[in-house]
């Protein structure tokens, strides 16, 4: 009996590994085996390179790997059907550990620039602080989009439009009127919110896929207008010389009257980078604070109710048009804030920074993180943006790994990394989170 089972396990494992090997062979033949290259020295002639050894290696690795996993780890007769979920951690975080993680990350974010300076010196830490600023920008964008997609359930594929409106508002106001960053920041937010409402009025009667398409088109329209209105926006040349932010009127410049001089420090260009880091950190935390607070207010509950069932909302006397518009406008406003930060950080903007891919990345952060989850957005932004920049050495394989990670996350946790919903109000102290299976995704 024992022997027979062992036997069938062996046969099953062999079969499964063979299947895997065949699939690997089929894929690797094209993707690894053939390589088109430009011949150097013989003009710009294309030639085909064969790498059958690499294909063989891939097939052998997959065969051996699957065989061993089947024999010693999965040990089930239905081995092939176990799939990825079998060996990835199950379930979400408990409330206690989730809180620990939250405060741990907060403390880490606060001390990060100084910790990096301490270990790597101001020269070595610069690129990492820059990366952290980028990650935080996406965290803020993710939190802004989370209001629209995660809470109100409106699929917005053109979120980058508001990011662009914010960035160009600041750049143009500074360019034509010479306004400073601190005057432009609220103006950029207001203008983006205004455009959110302009877009919202005609399209919010659409639902689901139709809404997504129209928002996508809107994002493209903004970009194309910026690209073609040469006299006003500089078109493809972009706008340069965007003023840098000041620290309560102190510029980050060398010499007298600058930030370093005022505080009696030695001038170092890293000061401005650290300042930018804390600026975006505070902006992101304000976004988070406002969102979390709104969730516990009637408007936030109405957003979530709208995501759950729009018709029931109307039957309860909720003005769904206004409710959707507020979600759209608020999301757009935070996008606009982030946009004006982006402009001031870069000092140069052009329509190239606001392509559909940006919208897709922001949406991917929200979806991978878990719709409606603030913590999930942070984790997803760190993984996606941070990871993406971190593995720059892998060059073209980076995209492959990136895609693979996304697939793995979506298979393992279809509703995102943090997929339980916290009730906005509770009678008992230890109310549990609501499983994502019960929460609707919204339909427009």
């Amino acid at each position, binding site marked *: 009996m024992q022997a027979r089972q062992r036997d069938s396990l062996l046969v099953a494992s062999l079969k499964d590994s063979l299947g895997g090997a065949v699939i690997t062979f089929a894929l690797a033949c094209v993707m690894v085996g053939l390589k088109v290259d430009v011949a150097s020295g013989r003009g710009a002639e294309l030639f085909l390179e064969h790498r059958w050894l690499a294909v063989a290696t891939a097939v052998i690795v997959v065969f051996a790997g699957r065989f061993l996993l089947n024999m010693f780890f999965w040990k089930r007769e239905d081995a092939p059907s176990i799939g990825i979920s079998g060996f990835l951690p199950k379930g979400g975080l408990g409330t206690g550990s989730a809180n620990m993680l939250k405060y741990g990350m907060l403390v880490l974010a606060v001390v990060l620039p100084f910790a990096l300076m301490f270990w790597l010196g101001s020269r070595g830490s610069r690129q990492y602080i820059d990366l952290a600023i980028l990650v935080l920008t996406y965290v803020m964008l993710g939190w802004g989009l989370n209001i629209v997609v995660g809470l109100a359930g409106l699929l917005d594929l053109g979120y980058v439009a508001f990011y662009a409106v914010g960035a160009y508002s600041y750049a143009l106001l500074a360019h034509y009127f010479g306004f400073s960053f601190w005057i432009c920041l609220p103006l950029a937010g207001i203008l983006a919110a205004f455009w959110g409402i302009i877009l919202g009025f005609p399209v919010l009667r659409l639902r689901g896929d139709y809404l997504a398409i129209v928002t996508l088109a809107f994002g493209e329209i903004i970009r194309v207008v910026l690209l073609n209105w040469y006299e006003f926006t500089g078109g493809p040349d972009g706008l340069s010389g965007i003023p840098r932010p000041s620290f309560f009127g102190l510029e980050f410049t060398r010499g007298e009257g600058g930030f370093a001089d005022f505080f009696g420090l030695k001038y170092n260009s890293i000061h401005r980078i650290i300042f930018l880091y804390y600026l975006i950190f505070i902006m992101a935390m304000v976004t988070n604070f406002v969102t979390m607070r709104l969730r516990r207010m*009637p408007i936030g509950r109405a957003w979530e109710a709208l995501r759950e069932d729009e018709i029931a909302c*109307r039957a309860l006397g909720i003005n769904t048009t206004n409710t959707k518009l507020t979600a759209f406008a608020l999301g757009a406003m935070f996008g606009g804030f982030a946009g004006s930060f982006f402009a001031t950080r870069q000092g140069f903007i052009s329509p190239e920074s606001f392509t559909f891919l940006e919208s897709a990345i922001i949406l991917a952060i929200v979806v991978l993180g878990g719709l409606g989850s603030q913590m999930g957005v942070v984790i997803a932004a760190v993984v996606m943006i941070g990871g993406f920049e971190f593995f720059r050495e892998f060059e073209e394989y980076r995209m492959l790994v990136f895609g693979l990670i996304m697939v793995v996350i979506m298979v393992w946790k279809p509703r995102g990394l943090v997929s339980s919903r916290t009730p906005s109000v509770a*009678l008992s102290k230890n109310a549990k989170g609501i499983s994502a299976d019960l929460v609707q995704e919204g339909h427009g």
Partner: protein
Amino acid sequence: MSTWDNNPVLKVEHLTMRFGGLTAVGDLSFNVGRGDITALIGPNGAGKTTVFNCITGFYKPTEGRLVMNRSNGEKHLLERKPDFKITAEAKVARTFQNIRLFGGMTILENLMVAQHNPLMVASNWTIGGLLGLGGYKKSNVDAIETAKYWLERIDLIDRADAPAADLSYGDQRRLEIARAMCTGPELLCLDEPAAGLNPKESLELNTLLQYIRKEHDTSVLLIEHDMSVVMEISDHVVVLDYGVKISDGTPEFVKNDPHVIAAYLGVEDDEVDQVEEEVGIV
């Protein structure tokens, strides 16, 4: 002159609803008495839900007038209002035939969403509440108290923090009624509240509706197929068939009306001829 004609909370006058060539409701007039439980019955496809959708603004009637007389003397013409204003201003609340709860939100949250409009005012349209100004905190506590009151009425207070989708069918039905009551309605429209309930739950529903009618300034209009519910609790029954009113009166009157028997209630086989003769079908 029946009691419901003296001081009706809702007057339906010559209501007609056409969908292309199909007349779902044709020239329907009836009154819903203040403080009454009024039942709208009829065979499937008779146009009952269409009447409901017209009253609650989900459809715009082709012809006719719907006058809501609020207890404070305000008159509202429902056919002119968008659906959300009918609940917010005219104080007409409804439930749905296929339950529409916010499944991913807790039971308490469901009842809080229903109190959206007063809470929005209390929070100065979010701005005051966001800054922590004004009486928002107190209103929030009051809203939770209202929710708790209704949760006690429907025996779900222990499960207040559970997601609404986790409730059993009967509990979901009662929660939907409680949620509608949290909007503070003067007319509560229930679309088949007893559908799918077992006899015990059906009995609890009767008690709940009678409680609502007695303790709150709320009249009830309900669509129902379950005759035990209709006959037991309603004060006034309106019968529809093919979009036309065929009978209107007390349950006792309607039960014995040959038109109703022929169209809807039915009789024993050996009495068919007699009824057909009375109605005039030969």
